[in-house]
């Protein structure tokens, strides 16, 4: 077969209407594209695709050290009827629905303001918003645990000063998830902000100048020029932060252990417990596959919503 290929391609012009041959010709013409992505493809095949395929297979198996046993859809049946998985899905979805738009909108607004500042001031703000991210998530969660402590924490201390509280931040199933979200909301999305600022750098000045001549207001310019041209970045952030939010783990692990009750149990926290406490990697894989499908669905939606072929 490979031997037959070159004459085929050579005579491709003659058989140009054959779609198979056309593709071959195109592949040959674009060989550089394949060369450029070859290292990445090799790495992904070896270190991502193989493990991912294995965990997909495990989702249909019962994990046994002596050799996995195919169990069909049993794992999925168990997971989908497990009320704890339902609760974890609800918590995770609620978290994502709040956090993803919040992070993107806030980052967009802050970046839009910051870009008007001088270089030096801008760099100060970038640092202030971004650098808190250098601390490890575990340590940050521990700081927040101290802030939320029901009896001696900072928040209840401040509330008691104005005669309010004590408020059961993490110690009530009705408020605990909200408190974990609040922690994410109060920390500005620094990474998003610097990415938006970098993307804004690329928007050509003359577009705004043309708009100025037309007498457009700043808000109009923002809406009609800045926003559409940032769409690729917004798409990136929407997809990446959706994946990140759906996979939230550390806060639940460090601050609440998924409690009280199951009020802060997230899907990945549950997967972690299923895999590393119960040693049921098949069940954990089934949970992961369901989460995967949900993330893919949301990402496709995001892609439809934000995808454009913009070019300045």
């Amino acid at each position, binding site marked *: 077969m490979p031997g037959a290929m070159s004459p085929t391609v050579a005579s491709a012009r003659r058989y140009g209407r054959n779609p198979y041959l056309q593709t071959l010709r195109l592949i040959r013409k674009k060989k550089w594209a394949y060369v450029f992505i070859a290292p990445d493809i090799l790495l992904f095949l070896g270190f991502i695709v193989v493990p991912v395929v294995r965990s997909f297979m495990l989702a249909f198996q019962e994990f046994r050290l002596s050799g996995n046993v195919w169990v069909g859809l049993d794992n999925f049946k168990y997971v989908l009827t497990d009320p704890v998985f339902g609760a974890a899905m609800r918590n995770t979805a609620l978290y994502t629905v709040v956090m993803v738009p919040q992070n993107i909108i806030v980052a967009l607004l802050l970046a839009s303001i910051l870009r008007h500042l001088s270089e030096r001031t801008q760099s100060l703000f970038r640092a202030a918003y971004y650098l808190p991210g250098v601390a490890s998530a575990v340590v940050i969660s521990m700081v927040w645990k101290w802030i939320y402590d029901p*009896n001696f924490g900072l928040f209840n201390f401040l509330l008691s000063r104005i005669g309010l509280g*004590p408020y059961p931040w993490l*110690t009530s199933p009705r408020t605990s998830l909200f408190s974990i979200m609040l922690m994410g909301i109060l920390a500005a999305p620094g990474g998003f902000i610097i990415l938006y600022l970098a993307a804004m750098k690329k928007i050509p000045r003359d577009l705004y100048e043309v708009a100025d001549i037309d007498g457009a207001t700043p808000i109009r310019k923002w809406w009609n020029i800045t926003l559409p041209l940032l769409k690729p970045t917004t798409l990136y952030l929407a997809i990446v932060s959706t994946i990140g939010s759906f996979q939230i783990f550390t806060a639940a692990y460090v601050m609440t252990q998924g409690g*009280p009750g*199951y009020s802060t149990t997230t899907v990945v926290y549950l997967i972690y417990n299923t*895999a*590393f406490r119960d040693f049921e990697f098949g069940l954990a894989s089934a949970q992961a596959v369901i989460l995967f499908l949900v993330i893919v669905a949301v990402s496709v939606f995001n892609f439809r919503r934000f995808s454009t072929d913009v070019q300045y």
Partner: protein
Amino acid sequence: MKAGIMRRASRVLALALLLGGLVAAVVPAGAAGKWTGTLVVWDFPRPEAAAEWELAAFKKFEESHPGVKIEYTKLSWAGGGEKLDVAVAAGDPPDICGSGLRLPYVLQGALEPIDPYLTAEDLKDFYEGSLNAVTLNGKRWGWPWYNTVYTLYLNVDLFKERRVPLPENGQWTWREFLYAMQQLTFDRDGDGKIDVYGFGFTIQPTYLQPFGFIYAEGGRILSPDGKEFVLDKPEAVAGIKRLYDMVWTYKCALPGAGGMTTVDVHNAFLNSRSIAAFADTTGIISAFTTHNQKVEKGEIQGQKINLVTAGYPRGSTGLPVAAGPGVGSWAVFKQKDPAKRDVVMELARFLTSGKSQKEVVPLIGTFPSRKSAGNVWAGHPYLERVAPSVEYAVYPPMHPEWAKIDEKIMKELQLAMLGEKTIEAALRDAKRQVERFLRP
């Protein structure tokens, strides 16, 4: 033609290799009588002195077994369990691991049963409770190393500040205990906010510390045969009610018990000194001792903690019952080579012998699991008084699904302790969820 010769040649070669391999495998073993090679040993970090004891013990074992090398890896508390899990799941576990006996490993057949290696003396020497705690499906899966129980720790300075007498010899009734906890709950600076609470506890999966109160009333989680949920029996409910009352009726326990983690309780006792008493394993003693030493050496300029231990208040059973997390043991992972298995088992027996336990168990702050180790805590200011309760210690049931049962119960009790559900409703819901695991 050519292929035929090749095939024959390769067959001859394979046969020769096989024979050679057999000879190589049989002869040295037969000649030396012993397996030689490297043993991979993992353990979780122990208190400094105990870790030193371990290294010395490994060296001693190497000396007495020429040709055997021990390759030791110290796991970390953060992530160590996951490292072991991944290694076991990938089919590449160490040969032996301290605290490596986990029920899923047993069910997955990752461990070697130790029964063939237990002599009649061993069976007589180990405490029955210690052996029971490593038994599942009729076999024993780890060499018991030490027994751990929970005990109450009391902050002596706070007792003095409130002029509350310490329980004599660490023994008290529920009334005496409750009275003390109420006295110890106070507003020090008069700002209308409670600064110190008597007791602090948390309800979390795997943390059975508060269950001492339930066991003291005669309550249990599962029936002895592990087939029935009995936490909703009146005696167990009485114990749960005591915990609940401390929070809600007498308000002498740290509020939010159902929503806190153990870190919160530890911080409240050691760092903010905002609770006068809490329950935890005796192993934690070494952490307090280290803290005080660090203060003395000036490494940290904090306050030394001045404490005593006490038993759980005696409930209606009148016995010095204690809860316990279980037994620390050395687990041997599946071995292909029987000769090597013999050596690994020998190492495990050596590490858990009466003599070894006598030396190392005090360094870990726990109790021996062999009678021949003697009373290691005689005369000890804190732990001598705990010794009697070791005999009555109640360990978590050795049920294959224990981790899940534990989670369901604790999550329901959390809601009950937070006042989100009545105790009765929580127990009813727990029972419904747990029974699924009890009747396969």
